[in-house]
């Protein structure tokens, strides 16, 4: 299964870096959508099927925490895999985000961290592993 991914960050440069990292990781990707704040992200979700969301927290208009709350209260998006990619450093706030079922990646991040977290959240193998057959590989090979 190739993933439809939504990347939500108010920095266009950071969105581009995350997308580039996803592509370099060899993950099986289909469409990639971008949003500059939480409100834009929810609008995209209304019109497109998304398999995975990578979500910043500190954003204008609507922050990532509110997006997570809205997702979990909507039956259609309650189970959507979400990876929070943020500079947040408070372990109390990170624990609160994890209670919504979100994984957490701290900025700055390594490509390996993105890759292993995406695989663990979605269960989707990377392109090479798909070619070799399910679970044929022995894990990340950076």
């Amino acid at each position: 299964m190739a993933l439809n991914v939504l990347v939500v960050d108010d920095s266009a440069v950071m969105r581009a870096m995350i997308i580039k990292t996803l592509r370099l990781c060899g993950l099986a990707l289909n469409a990639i959508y971008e949003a500059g704040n939480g409100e834009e992200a929810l609008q995209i979700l209304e019109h497109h099927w998304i398999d995975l969301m990578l979500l910043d927290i500190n954003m204008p208009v609507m922050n990532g925490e509110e997006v997570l709350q809205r997702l979990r209260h909507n039956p259609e998006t309650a189970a959507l895999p979400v990876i929070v990619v943020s500079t947040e450093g408070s372990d109390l706030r990170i624990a609160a985000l994890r209670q919504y079922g979100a994984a957490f990646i701290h900025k700055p991040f390594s490509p390996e961290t993105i890759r292993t977290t995406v695989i663990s959240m979605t269960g989707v193998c990377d392109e090479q592993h798909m070619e070799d057959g399910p679970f044929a590989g022995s894990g990340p090979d950076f």
Partner: protein
Amino acid sequence: MNNTWKTALLQAAVLTFEELCFLFPETELTEEQQRATADAAVCVRFQGPFHGALQVNLCGQVLSIVTANILGEEDAPTPAQQLDALGEIANIICGNLLPHIAGAHAIFQLDAPQVVDAAEAPASASMACVTDVQLGLERGRVDLRLWAQQAVAASLGEL
């Protein structure tokens, strides 16, 4: 100046430039790096157990290199991309710095990065510079200044 805060600022900056920008900052500056003039500056203000601001100045025409490295592209980045990248760098350094100086439980709210005049201090009489760091980057330099409310600055001075 407080050594613990200076070390925390140094470590947060080195981590960010290494992992985000694939550059290796140097603590010993060459003459060329020392002479470099500012290209751009941004300031990230924060509120929490105490309030303050982190100002990041990039000097010596390294901003385009930094941005190109983040994007992983050979094409020259636009001025808008360069300022966006500098804001994200400041945001990440600040986010990594604050738990080290205020504790892992401390909750801070970071404002969006603002482009500022490199020579200008954050416009608030209630804040004082508590520590600063200079690092060599390629043929240029990054200057980082951490500001905190006067009461915090005064208490650091007494340590």
